[in-house]
């Protein structure tokens, strides 16, 4: 037998007269009502209540109520903003340090100071980095043959290199400096003297092929002012320094593309070996 709950009686009353109920439904209903008569009278009352038009009975409040509420709404919209504005400036009842305007001003000043200090520091770092580079270049120039303070371990003749005029380097160009070419001259360099940290793209190439390819590259590359090279090989570096020389992209030159990837590590421990090697490298800086 299906189990009914008292709450189902309303549904049964609305949809069925007593004689239309199933036996189990009758049994259930009679547990809660006295008899058929009560069931039917309750049913009638329920139907009357449900069938009467409720919405027609709804009352309408006075029109002044809507007016008052809309005015209240407009006031609320203005009020919050004006209260906030008032609190920005002089409110005598508040202590000075609690006035909103003072607090905001203080906050803005702190933010401005912080921004200024941060910018200052970052520009100092930039200047330091630039000075570092130029000092390294200068020390490299000093380490050229004739100026070297450390003995040449291989006791081989160091060919003279054309000097690079870096006088214009103090006025740094707007465009990035391009490391145009690294030409290894391998004739006088024993294999064991080649620093492992120096990546030489053309280590196996002969001088002639290098010269040829260079000629082609130079022909393809846009004309650039020649820079007189000074002594760039470094010698007296005491600290391990890793310097990455990166160049802006060259539109045509394969060598310049290599230079973008070249990384030169200079260490004090290998400075003697590197001196020999460095002497044999021709580094041409081309500033666009």
């Amino acid at each position, binding site marked *: 037998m299906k189990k009914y*709950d*008292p*709450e*189902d*009686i*309303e549904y049964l009353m609305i949809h069925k007269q007593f004689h239309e109920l199933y036996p189990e439904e009758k049994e259930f209903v009679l547990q*809660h*009502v006295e008899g058929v008569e*009560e069931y039917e*009278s*309750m049913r*009638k*009352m*329920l*139907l*009357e*209540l*449900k*069938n009467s038009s*409720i919405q027609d*009975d*709804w*009352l*309408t*409040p*006075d029109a002044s*109520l*809507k007016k*008052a*509420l*809309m005015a*209240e*709404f*407009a006031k*609320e*919209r203005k009020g919050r903003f004006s209260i906030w504005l008032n609190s920005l400036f002089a409110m005598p009842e508040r202590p000075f340090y609690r006035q909103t305007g003072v607090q905001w001003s203080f906050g803005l000043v702190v933010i401005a100071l912080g921004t200024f200090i941060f910018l200052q520091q970052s520009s100092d770092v930039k200047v330091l980095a630039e000075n570092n580079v130029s000092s390294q270049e200068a020390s490299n120039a000093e380490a050229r043959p004739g100026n070297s303070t450390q003995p040449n371990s291989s006791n081989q003749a160091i060919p003279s290199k054309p000097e690079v005029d870096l006088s214009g380097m103090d006025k740094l160009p707007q465009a990035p400096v391009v490391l145009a070419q690294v030409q290894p001259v391998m004739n006088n360099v024993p294999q064991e003297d080649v620093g492992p940290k120096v990546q030489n793209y053309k280590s196996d190439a002969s001088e002639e092929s290098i010269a040829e390819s260079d000629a082609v590259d130079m022909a393809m590359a846009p004309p650039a002012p020649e820079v007189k090279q000074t002594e760039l090989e470094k010698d007296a570096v005491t600290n391990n320094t890793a310097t990455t020389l990166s160049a802006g992209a060259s539109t045509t030159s394969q060598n310049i593309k290599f230079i973008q990837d070249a990384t030169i590590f200079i260490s004090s421990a290998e400075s003697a070996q590197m001196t020999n090697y460095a002497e044999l490298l021709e580094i041409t800086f081309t500033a666009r």
Partner: protein
Amino acid sequence: MAKSNSKYQSTPDEQLMLLVASKDSKAFEELYDRYNRQMYTYFHRMLWKDKEKAHDFTQELFTKLIHKPELFNAERNFKTWLYSIAHNMCKNEYAKHEVRQHAHSEIKYTQEQSHDGQTSRQMDKNAFYTELEVALAELDEVKRTTFELRFKQEMSIQEISEIMECSEGTVKSRLFYTLKQLNGRLKVYEGILGFFILLIDRLS
């Protein structure tokens, strides 16, 4: 103007309430237009048919919407939320006054209204509803609220359970025993009710 009104007319209540929180006056106006009659009638019936009290309570209810819209939870049904506020307001009012004193003054008021230029059947029907109101006034607050929300405000069992914060089974049970109690009072009008129900069944 017409376009914006039609835009708000198709907006759900919950969305309008969020716009009210953003200080949109048109949204508030639309909400008021939708619910002012219902709420005014509800307060009028629940507060001893006192028109002034109904006016004040309706104003207070909508003022709460203006000042504290953030209290509305967008996940909840707006209608049940509004009625739950109204229900709590009435509960607080009942706590201040005794119901029976006002019920007696109500009987006198409604009986005086019912005898002007009406047919005998209409008078009987009116008498039935008058007696119904008297009987309702004698009910306790909980049963009366349940009856009002179900048969006068046309709310579902689920909505009533949300407003009164009880289970649906409890709501159904209360409704049944309220009907039973009212039926005991109104048996004398059974014949009239039977006629009207028969008429409705024939016509439908």
